[in-house]
C-alpha cells in the first residue's frame, strides 16, 4: 500500500478549507488596515497631471462602462475622477453602453456631487444607457444631440440644459475618461473617436483583467492616460488628495494576493514532492526486481 505523507494529505485537502483561508486573508485587513505605503506609477501621476492641465469649463466625456460585478474596482477611480473633474471646473457628460453603467455611476456619484454642491444639468448630466454603441458614437461625431435623441437618463431634454452649451459634436470634448471592464470600453472609443481624430485624449480606466491590453494602448499613444485596477484607483485617490475605498482596501488586496501566491507555491512543492516520491518508489521496485 502506498505510504501517505503530509504532502498527500495536503494534495487532498478540501477546497472549502482554501476558501476559508482566502476569506480570512481579506476580512482581517479590511477590519484592521495597516496602511502600507503605495508605490506610485508614472502612468497614474501623468494622468492626474494631464487632467489638471485641461482648462476649467472644458467639456469632458465620462464613459460609464461598467457593471455591478466591476464596482469594487471601478467605483474608486470613478468617484475620484468625477471629484477631480468637478474641482477643476470641467463640465461632465456621463454616458455608457453597458445596461448597468449609467445607473451605477449615478448611484456612486450622486452623494459626492451633492456633497460638493454640483448641480445636475449645469455641472454634469447623465445620458443613460444606449443600445448599439458603434452607430451612436459614429452619429455623435457629427451631431451629439441627435445621437442621444436629445434625452437624458430621466427622459428630460438635453438641449435645454446649460451643461450642454457648446456641445455639438464629439470633437468638442477636451478628453474622455472611460471606465473599461471589457467591450464596450476604451477600445470602442478609440476606434470611434480617437481614430477619426475627434478626441485626442482618452484616459483608460481598466479593471485588473483588462490592464494587460491597456498597457499596449498606452505605450502606443492611443490612450493618453492609464489608471489600472484597484491599485491604480488607490494611487489616483491619494494623488488627488481624497483617499477612499481603494486606499482602504489595498491591505486586503495585498493579503489576498499573497494568499494566492502561497497556494501556488505550496501546491507546486506538494506536487513535486509527491512526484519525486513516486519516482523513487518506481526506482526501488525496478532495482528490487532486477
Amino acid at each position: 500500500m502506498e505510504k501517505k505523507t503530509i504532502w498527500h494529505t495536503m494534495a487532498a485537502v478540501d477546497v472549502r478549507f482554501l476558501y476559508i483561508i482566502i476569506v480570512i486573508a481579506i476580512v482581517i485587513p479590511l477590519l484592521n488596515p495597516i496602511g502600507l505605503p503605495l508605490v506610485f506609477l508614472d502612468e497614474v501621476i501623468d494622468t492626474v497631471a494631464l487632467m489638471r492641465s485641461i482648462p476649467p469649463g472644458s467639456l469632458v466625456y465620462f464613459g460609464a462602462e461598467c457593471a455591478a460585478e466591476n464596482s469594487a474596482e471601478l467605483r474608486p477611480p470613478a468617484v475620484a475622477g468625477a471629484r477631480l473633474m468637478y474641482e477643476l471646473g470641467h463640465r461632465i457628460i456621463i454616458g455608457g453602453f453597458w445596461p448597468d453603467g449609467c445607473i451605477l455611476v449615478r448611484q456612486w456619484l450622486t452623494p459626492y456631487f451633492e456633497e460638493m454642491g454640483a448641480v445636475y444639468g449645469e455641472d454634469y448630466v447623465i445620458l443613460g444607457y444606449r443600445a448599439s454603441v458603434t452607430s451612436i458614437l459614429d452619429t455623435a461625431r457629427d451631431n451629439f444631440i441627435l445621437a442621444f435623441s436629445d434625452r437624458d437618463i430621466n427622459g428630460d431634454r438635453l438641449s435645454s440644459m446649460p451643461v450642454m452649451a457648446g456641445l455639438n459634436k464629439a470633437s468638442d470634448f477636451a478628453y474622455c475618461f472611460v471606465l473599461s471592464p471589457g467591450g464596450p470600453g476604451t477600445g470602442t472609443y478609440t476606434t470611434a473617436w480617437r481614430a477619426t481624430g475627434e478626441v485626442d485624449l482618452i484616459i483608460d480606466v481598466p479593471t485588473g483583467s483588462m490592464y494587460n491590453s491597456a498597457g499596449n494602448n498606452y505605450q502606443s499613444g492611443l490612450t493618453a492616460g492609464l489608471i489600472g485596477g484597484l491599485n491604480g484607483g488607490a494611487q489616483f485617490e491619494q494623488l488627488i488628495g481624497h483617499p477612499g475605498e481603494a486606499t482602504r482596501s489595498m491591505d486586503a488586496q495585498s493579503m489576498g494576493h499573497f494568499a494566492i501566491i502561497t497556494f501556488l507555491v505550496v501546491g507546486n512543492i506538494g506536487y513535486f514532492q509527491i512526484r519525486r516520491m513516486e519516482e523513487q518508489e518506481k526506482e526501488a521496485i525496478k532495482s528490487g526486481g532486477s
Partner: protein
Amino acid sequence: MAGVNVPTAIVDALTPWSTTIGVICLIGVWSMLYKENPFYRACEHAYVGSAAAHTLVTTYANTIKPGIQMNMAQNGDYWEIIPILLGCLIYFQPIRQYNWISRFPMAFWVGYNAGYSLTLRVAMPLFTEARRTMLPFFVITDGRFDLMTSINNIVFTGVVVLVLVYFIFSRNVIQGKGVFLNRWARIAIMICFGAGFGNGVANRVSLLIGRFNYVLSDWLKLY
C-alpha cells in the same frame, strides 16, 4: 404617457432593507461553495431573469422611448419606422418556417459593422501601434549612450516581431534552425499570459473585497 408611481411611503419603508436583501442574495449565491443546493439554484434563476429584464427596461427607457419622442413625435421623422420594422424581423428567428426572414436585419448589421471596420477606425490604431513598435535601438540621452533604454527597446521590438512571426508563419514555414524563433516567441507569450494571470488575480481579489466591503461596511457598518 405619464408613468405610475409607487407611493413614497412604501419605497421609504423598503429602502432600509435593500442591503439586507443584498446580503441574503450573496449568501444564497455563495452557498454554492459549500455544495449545490436549492437556495443557490433559486438565486441563479432570479439573477438570469432580472438581468434579462433589466437589459430590456434600459433599452426601452433610454433608446427606444427617447427615439420615438424626439425623432418621430418631435421632428416628424416617420421614415424611422422602416429600420424599426427591419429590427423586428429578428423575432422570426424562433419560428422555424420563417426564420430565414431574420437574416435580413442580421445581414444589415454585419454589413454596417464590416464597412465601419474597413475604414480608418480600425486601421489607424494598427498603423499607430506598428509605428510605435519601431523604437530606436541606440538611444542617446543627454549626449550619452543610454544602455538600459536601448536594451529595453530591442527587447520590445524583438518580442513584437517574434510573436508576429510565430502567429503569421506556421511551423511548416519556419523549419530547421529557424525553429528556435518559435521557442523564444512561446516564452514571451507565456510570460505575457503569466502577467495576464497576475492581473486576473488582482481582478478576482478585488471582486471579493467588493463583496466584503458590502457586508462589513454597508450592512454591518463596521467601518
